[in-house]
């Protein structure tokens, strides 16, 4: 019942906040969001699951109730956590609390609606990571779109309307593709499955696969579904060439929405890839490993090069997310313990680091009302703490040892280097070159914006940021360093959940 409690607190909290007076909405939402955060930390401590949720693992906090009986299929309320989903749930709850605190300064109109939507999004994100029935999962998955669309559309920057509708249309079309593909798969599996429960579908896929549907052979159907689902999720991740909605959405979104968008929403895509494509289709992963690895490497390099060309700090961070997500895909396709484990670790790590970066950029923007690197110089003079954290976050991005980014990238490269597909070492080497580019664009931008003599083209009085802007960043920095020093805090449970996947293909 713990997961239900998390969802209930967030949903009821969203309703209460939505109708609360604007004046207290921010504080109220923060207080409410502490409850799921504390609960999820307790769940983290009390975690007693083992193995993979889809592959006969022991689930923690499981509950399964039959919900709708469709005759030939049943739909259940089926939630539970394993070593892959639990860290992501904790990431979601913590990041939401911090994002709410970081909104106190920049959000100054329609606060109650804003914070209500943030809590609503939190509930759905928890649901995405906890749901183990496809139908239930898809409801949460789609329900994330609506609040994010409104958050960007109402509180966003000058081009918010365009960015919001682009985000909505891109991701919704992708979802429809993926949805259709999965339904076709379930129908193709025939009498082998009687529900939409993911473990049952995974089991049927690994023991025989689909029979065929609409005149397609079983193996062809599996391949078509694999590709369609990959494309559907690829938009969400996003990988090149489906990434164009991301910079628009990020740049226009208000800072707290960016934090959640980069920190958690992008992970929905990679999490779904891991749960569906890379768990249920080991044969197809092997067949399509080279093209997927190529897409991953292109995302890493091209995303980094795009970042290099930007002068808007937020755009730089946004494009660097494309690059970082490329690493995740590379880790997944490696299909080794360190590859997939590292990819999952990177999901958490990137969530923390990109959240930190967006917050830091947001704090600077609050003071200066500009994000253009070319407008700023010597910000370190005026905002030493915020800038210090921005620099620390940048080093996390670059993979400085003892920060979580280093551990994640190390695991991924280690796993990918020994992967079984053709030219794996070459792809890995190319992807590693991305690190150089990351260092290049981040250091270049920092050098121009924060160091040197103070100079700023603005009429605003620039002063130190208030404590409630700084505090969340320190919390994030603390977690980033903790995970860097002791990756086993979560890596152990991640690998425990990853190993069963590799028994069906790949290598341990």
């Amino acid at each position: 019942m713990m997961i239900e409690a998390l969802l209930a607190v967030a949903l009821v909290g969203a309703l209460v906040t939505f109708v609360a007076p604007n004046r207290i909405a921010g504080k109220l939402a923060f207080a409410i969001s502490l409850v799921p955060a504390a609960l999820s930390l307790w769940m983290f401590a009390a975690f007693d699951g083992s193995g993979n949720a889809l592959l006969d693992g022991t689930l923690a906090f499981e509950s399964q109730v039959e919900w709708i009986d469709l005759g030939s299929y049943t739909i259940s309320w089926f939630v539970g956590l394993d070593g892959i989903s639990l860290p992501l749930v904790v990431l979601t709850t913590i990041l939401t609390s911090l994002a709410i605190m970081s909104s106190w300064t920049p959000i100054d109109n329609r606060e109650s609606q804003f914070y209500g939507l943030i809590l609503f999004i939190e509930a759905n994100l928890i649901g995405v990571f906890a749901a183990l029935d496809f139908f239930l999962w898809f409801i949460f998955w789609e329900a994330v779109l609506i609040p994010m669309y409104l958050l960007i559309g109402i509180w966003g920057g000058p081009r918010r309307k365009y960015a919001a509708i682009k985000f909505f249309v891109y991701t919704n079309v992708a979802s429809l593709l993926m949805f259709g593909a999965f339904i076709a798969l379930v129908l193709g599996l025939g009498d082998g499955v009687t529900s939409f429960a993911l473990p049952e579908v995974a089991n049927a896929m690994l023991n025989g696969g689909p029979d065929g549907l609409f005149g397609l052979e079983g193996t062809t159907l599996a391949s078509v579904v694999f590709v369609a689902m990959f494309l559907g999720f690829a938009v969400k991740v996003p990988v090149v060439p489906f990434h164009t909605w991301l910079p628009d959405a990020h740049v226009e979104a208000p800072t707290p929405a960016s934090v959640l968008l980069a920190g958690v929403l992008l992970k929905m895509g990679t999490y779904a890839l891991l749960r569906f494509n890379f768990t249920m289709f080991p044969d197809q992963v092997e067949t399509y490993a080279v093209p997927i690895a190529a897409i991953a490497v292109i995302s890493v390099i091209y995303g980094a090069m795009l970042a290099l060309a930007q002068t808007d700090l937020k755009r730089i961070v946004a494009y660097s997310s494309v690059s970082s997500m490329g690493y995740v895909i590379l880790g997944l396709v490696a299909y080794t313990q360190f590859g997939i484990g590292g990819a999952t670790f990177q999901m958490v790590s990137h969530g923390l680091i990109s959240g930190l970066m967006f917050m830091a950029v947001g704090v600077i923007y609050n003071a200066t009302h500009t994000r253009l690197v070319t407008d700023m110089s010597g910000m370190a003079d005026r905002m030493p703490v915020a800038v210090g954290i921005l620099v620390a976050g940048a080093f996390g991005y670059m993979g400085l040892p003892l920060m979580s980014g280093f551990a994640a990238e190390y695991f991924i490269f280690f796993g990918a280097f020994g992967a079984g597909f053709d030219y794996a070492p070459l792809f890995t080497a190319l992807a590693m070159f991305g690190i150089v580019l990351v260092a290049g664009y981040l250091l270049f931008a920092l050098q121009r914006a924060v160091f040197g003599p103070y100079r700023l083209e603005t009429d605003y009085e620039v002063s130190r940021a208030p404590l409630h802007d700084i505090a969340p960043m320190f919390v994030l920095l603390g977690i980033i360093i903790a995970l860097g020093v002791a990756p086993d805090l979560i890596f152990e449970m991640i690998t425990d959940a990853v190993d069963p996947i590799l028994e069906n293909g790949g290598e341990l």
Partner: protein
Amino acid sequence: MAVFELPGWTALAPALILAVTGLVLFVFDSISPNSTNRSLLAGTAAGGALVSLAVAVWFTFAGVGTPTVDGGLGEISILGGQLVVDQLALYFMIVVAIVTALITVASYDYLVDHTYQAEYYSLIILAATGMSLMAAANSLVTIFIALELASLPSYALVAILKDNRGSVEAGLKYFLIGALSSAIFVYGISLVYGATGHLQLENIAAVISGGDVDGYGGLLGLGILMLIGGFAFKTASVPFHFWAPEAYEGAPAPVSAFLSSASKAAGFVIAFRVFTTAFPLGETTALIGVEWTHAFIILAIVTMTVGNFAAATQDNVKRMLAYSSIGHAGYALIGLAGLTADGGEFVMGAAMMHLLVYGFMNTGAFLFVGLAERWEVGRTFEDYNGLSTQAPVACAAMAVFLFSLAGIPPFGGFFSKFFLFMGAIEASAETTAMLAVAAALVVNSALSLYYYSRLVKALWIEEPSTTRDRLAQPTGLYAAIIVAAVMTVVILPGFGPVVDTALEAATAIVG
């Protein structure tokens, strides 16, 4: 349970309660024709609808109409089988009562300065009585009578804003097209009677199955085609859909809500009953040479496409909702298109669920338009710009309705559309053309998001173009809208029982 000992006609209680309520309203009006007690009138009407709803729900759970093999009390046949109370009838009585309750509560505020309030409420309740009877009608004669009982008050209701040119014009158009389609429907009945010699649905089926109609197959086929025309009018489907945008736009918003939700559902229940009971697919096909499901396949695809494409081009919110209502008739038609000789209860059950969910989300959407009319903000999308800054709760409810109509999770509309999709896919094993229907459903749903989200965008994201005065928050309208929104959302966790009820009802009638 006490239901056992009661005489059979009491099973019609949901409809009878509505009829009595209508008469009581007349009595109020004749006692004091010159004064208007809004609370009394609206309260009586809403109370009658709620009691009717409660009784219908109670009957459903008590097992009235449930076949005895399933542990129920058996179907109840009244007046020698002219009327029948089974699960299907009770299900649609519930839908009608829900919509009636919502709109009578909302009308309390909408009609603040209206002159003919008693007439308005009694017409609404009488039309609801007709719709409730349509759910139970089991012979072509009772069907026609119930249909007319529902239709005649509706014509007057559309034109009830007597000083409003649009309303009167809409009422006239609605009446003329209604009269035409009634004529076609009656002619269809006479042809079916000529071919089979019976009016009661089971007897028609018995004659068709017995092979006594040889030689009259063409006559029967023509009759069936004309009956389809009558259903198309009542459900606002192609080819008799074109009255809908005019009537819905001109009518007062609660009446539009009533017609597009309850009236449509009632039209569907007679279509479901007539085609599953009177014209068994296999035997009828042997007689007339074509499967009547093919007609519904074509109608479903054309109706949803026409409705959605036309809705996408509208600038007037009410017209957009009217065309979207046509599109949704197309979705519900899948329930008939997907029937097969020996099954199809799932797809029909899905259509029934869609009509129930639609009863909440569409009624709510039209009531929001009623609220906007009361605020006098204007009729186009632009006029709705930025309303959420002034009325966030109502606009949040409207966003729920619109996303649900578009079929976006987690709202009820997603569920019913998903079930329709699954049902269409299931039926495609027998009829390949159902794949095209499933594809049309998906494509149209995706398209519909375009125009529904346009309204969400206007409400929530656009800045208001003009400064408005403080917007009133009329209690009745707000209450109805919020109840509809909550039901659109909680139908999700509650979908298990709804699915069971709908599927059982569909199984009983199809099997």
